[in-house]
């Protein structure tokens, strides 16, 4: 599974989106798709668990989790490169 596919799967399970995460465009705004702050915390925890990373406080803001593309960039930064 690619990083992007993993992210989509985690979104599907945890982000409580109003739409299907598997078909969401990578740049689509997740908050506009229905993710609220409660769901975003669940998403963060699931991402940390799945990728064995820890989001530092400086990355705990809206823009980092704004889209699939933004999340992938953050995960790659913390994993030390693409997978």
């Amino acid at each position, binding site marked *: 599974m690619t990083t992007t596919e993993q992210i989509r799967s985690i979104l599907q399970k945890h982000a409580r989106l109003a739409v299907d995460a598997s078909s969401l465009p990578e740049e689509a705004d997740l908050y506009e*798709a*229905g993710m*609220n702050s*409660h769901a975003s915390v669940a998403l963060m925890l699931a991402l940390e668990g799945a990728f064995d990373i*820890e989001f530092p*406080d400086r990355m*705990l*803001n809206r823009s980092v989790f704004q889209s699939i593309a933004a999340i992938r960039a953050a995960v790659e930064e913390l994993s030390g490169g693409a997978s």
Partner: protein
Amino acid sequence: MTPLSTSEEFRALRERVQAVGVEVIRPAAADVDRRSRFPEEAIAALRKERVLGAAIPKTLGGLGLSLEQVSALCTAIGQHCAASAMIFAMHSIQVACMARHGAESPFFRAYLTECAEKQLLIASVTSEVGVGGDMRSSIACVRREGPRAQVEKAASVVSYGEHADALLLTARRGPDAPANDQALVLLRKGEYTLTKTSSWDTLGMRGTCSPGFQIAAEFAATQILEVPFAAIASLTMVPYSHGVWSSAWLGIASDAVARARQFVRAEARKRPGVTPFGATRLAHAANLHQTMRMQIHDAVKEYEALSASAEGEAVLSSIGYAIKINNLKITSSTLVAQIVSECLTICGMAAYANESKFSMGRQLRDALGAALMIANDRINATNATLLLVHKDE
């Protein structure tokens, strides 16, 4: 937003507001509370001092006061009448949101100019039946048809709604928008109908006149703020609210401590050389008061620094800041009730009596409302969730 050009000017304004507090607001406070009525004398006097335009930029005809200065006025008013202070605070929040996020809009610039000129009073419609106290979730939605729009909303609590010149209302951006994709809309008198759905007969904050209303409005699409409400909430509405509410509550606490101090001093004069019982308890109450004051001051100063830059704005949107600003509200609302309660105990029967110069019943009842609007348990639960990921580095 530039603050009043000299702090001398602001000091003079604050003194005038303090005088208004003593001469106009305080004498009416008991009746406002007893009859649960709108404090019209207070608002009229504040209008005369042009203070309803406090948070409107000078370029649009307002006083251009900073959050720190608006907060100081909330505290000054709160010493005399908590309901009046809360109305002034709530109004200032609405104005601040429009000023900060409507700056690019010709409609909002013109409206703020009119607000300053006519000293209009703006109420907030963020609550909704069926949603609980979660301001970031809406059932109602805006329906657009070309240049016009409509909205219908069952609001559970609208403070001074019947006395306002306009409403700032939250709703989903459209019929297909999810619950948390919200817009903020300005509705002017004449554009909406207000049907009261409940009554306001409460233990305290009685003069805020906050029953529920069914609202139906028809308005121009330009009255919808383009900035998403999520951003308005984290950049302005939440921190500003917690700052001005806490400052109003600080006014209540300050009044209580001042009375308690007077009482203890009077006792001490009766028997010089003997420290009255209340003195030690007063030391404790004064300590709590200092804690409350310092936390508010720190939070307000930090907010002003953060809102002045793009990097600062990123911090305002962070989980760490959300936790911190939530804590301000929780602490202030808890402390005000504690402080007033201690001061009541210090003054004893003199405060327990309703018509004495040390009476504190209304102040205590008002203070008890602070922890309930929005419920501290809800805010703590939010913080608990955020703390699952926040590392506090």
